[in-house]
């Protein structure tokens, strides 16, 4: 795909940051040989794999990057359905749920907004329970239909908004005029927006973690996630907004003010998404959604904040510039 210079620079910066993280993780292991940093090193190594594959897909083509997200959705849905109880009679219904991934990402790839936005919340919302009716088992109907729809909303509908950013184009009469950082950026604004969303979401997690580790005193959600503190939340949000305000105008079509608003949305929604997945795991009495990403847990453990930030950020952009 034609990537604008600012997107290329951002990708190089991410690789540089990973390099630093790798060096730091090796150095602190050398300095503290008796403490075990295996998880940290696994975490960094997995990040290399994620960033490596994603950048390759992005450089290759827009469709490849969208297929990458479809695959992430598939893995996340598989984790979700493997961890939650399901009725054996609903096997065929689950099969349709998997098929809907192909439909949803096809609508994203072809920039068919109307279908993209109604396919899962309307069509699948009606079709999956109808298919359940055809099987005829009424025991646990609400639980099965509700769980499955939530699974699709989280793992497919939400995440596909990140992919849709890639095909986003400025509308004919935007509410606010876009300020493109480069000519190529004006032709293909999607990659910059997507990179902004992912960078700010992931850094928000890290900022909140670091602030909490350093200054954390007062628990913010003791029953859901005892590690989260008010200090971590506020410090993280402030740092994220600041970072978004600096990054936005350089990388995306947003001006400084829009970038600050986007930063606020992502910081708060990211926190909520993270907590929501924690609550879900507590309810299911599991620690992680899986073990496919060494050092992180499952795919759903990695994209937990993104589940809430991507649709909100997308609609902010769509409302402002679409």
């Amino acid at each position, binding site marked *: 795909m034609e990537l604008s210079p600012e997107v290329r620079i951002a990708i190089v910066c991410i690789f540089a940051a990973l390099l630093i993280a790798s060096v730091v993780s090796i150095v602190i292991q050398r300095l503290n040989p008796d403490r075990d940093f295996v998880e940290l090193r696994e975490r960094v190594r997995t990040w290399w794999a994620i960033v490596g594959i994603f950048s390759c897909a992005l450089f290759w083509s827009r469709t490849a990057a969208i297929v990458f997200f479809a695959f992430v959705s*598939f893995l996340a849905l*598989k*984790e979700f*359905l*493997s*961890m*939650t*109880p*399901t*009725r*054996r*009679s609903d*096997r*065929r219904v*689950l*099969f349709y749920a*998997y098929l809907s991934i192909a439909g949803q990402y096809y609508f994203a790839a072809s920039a068919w907004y109307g279908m993209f936005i109604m396919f899962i919340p309307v069509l699948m919302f009606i079709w999956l329970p109808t298919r359940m009716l055809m099987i005829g088992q009424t*025991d*646990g109907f609400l*639980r*099965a239909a509700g769980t499955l729809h939530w699974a699709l909303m989280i793992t497919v509908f939400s995440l596909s908004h990140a992919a849709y950013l890639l095909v986003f184009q400025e509308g004919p009469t935007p509410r606010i005029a876009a300020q493109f950082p480069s000519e190529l950026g004006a032709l293909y604004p999607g990659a910059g927006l997507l990179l902004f969303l992912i960078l700010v979401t992931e850094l928000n997690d890290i900022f909140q973690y670091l602030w909490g580790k350093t200054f954390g005193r007062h628990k913010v959600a003791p029953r859901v996630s005892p590690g989260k503190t008010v200090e971590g939340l506020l410090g993280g949000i402030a740092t994220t907004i600041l970072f978004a305000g600096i990054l936005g105008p350089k990388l995306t079509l947003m001006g400084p003010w829009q970038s600050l608003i986007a930063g606020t949305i992502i910081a708060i929604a990211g926190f909520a998404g993270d907590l929501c997945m924690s609550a879900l795991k507590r309810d*299911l*009495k*599991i620690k992680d959604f*899986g*073990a*496919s990403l060494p050092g992180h847990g499952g795919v759903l453990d990695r994209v937990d904040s993104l589940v809430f930030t991507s649709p909100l950020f997308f609609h902010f952009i769509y409302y402002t510039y679409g």
Partner: protein
Amino acid sequence: MNSILRPLFFALIVRPLMMVVLGTNVRRHALLPKEGPALIVANHNSHLDVFALMNILGLKPLASVRPVAAADYFMTRPFRRWFATRIVGIIPIDRTKSRRGDGGHHPLEPISEVLRDGGIVLLFPEGTRGEPEKLDAFQAGVAHLARRHPEVPVTPVFMHGLGKALPKGEAILVPFFCDVFVGHPLDSTLPKREFMAQLSKSFENLAEELPPKEWI
């Protein structure tokens, strides 16, 4: 066994299927035998069980891995027979014969032969896939084998999830992660009844590791 198609099938079809479409969550991989002779005892929910297990054991020992399967099911139609013996490499055992036949051979003799040759034998002592994800009573053949080969380690493996992905009588595969919990090797010196009690106990303990999630 087909020495070219068999490794190709496991490397190019079974491996991607198990790693991408389905996915396995293995606990205590290190307890699995690395080389034969060895006996692996697993519960049976789906045709996929045997592929999941063989995939986890890896491609290196593949040539010596032999699942035990029912002759009265797998040896009937020509293609099924070819696939079962040449590609999967089953040891066919006739479930209908439980006593010594006319030739005076013990019905489990083919398994003993493979064990003497240093093979890794996969045994599903429930005897049938049965109702998915329900443990049926174990057949006692495994106790006979353990007594006949006290030097061969018997490793219990509890599998869960594939009965949902592809249960008996279904043609559509639905992706699910499957859990594979490897237990500690059993004591082969015990008499039949105690051995079977030990086997059941081991599977009960392994099954308790599952997160609580069943509705129906």
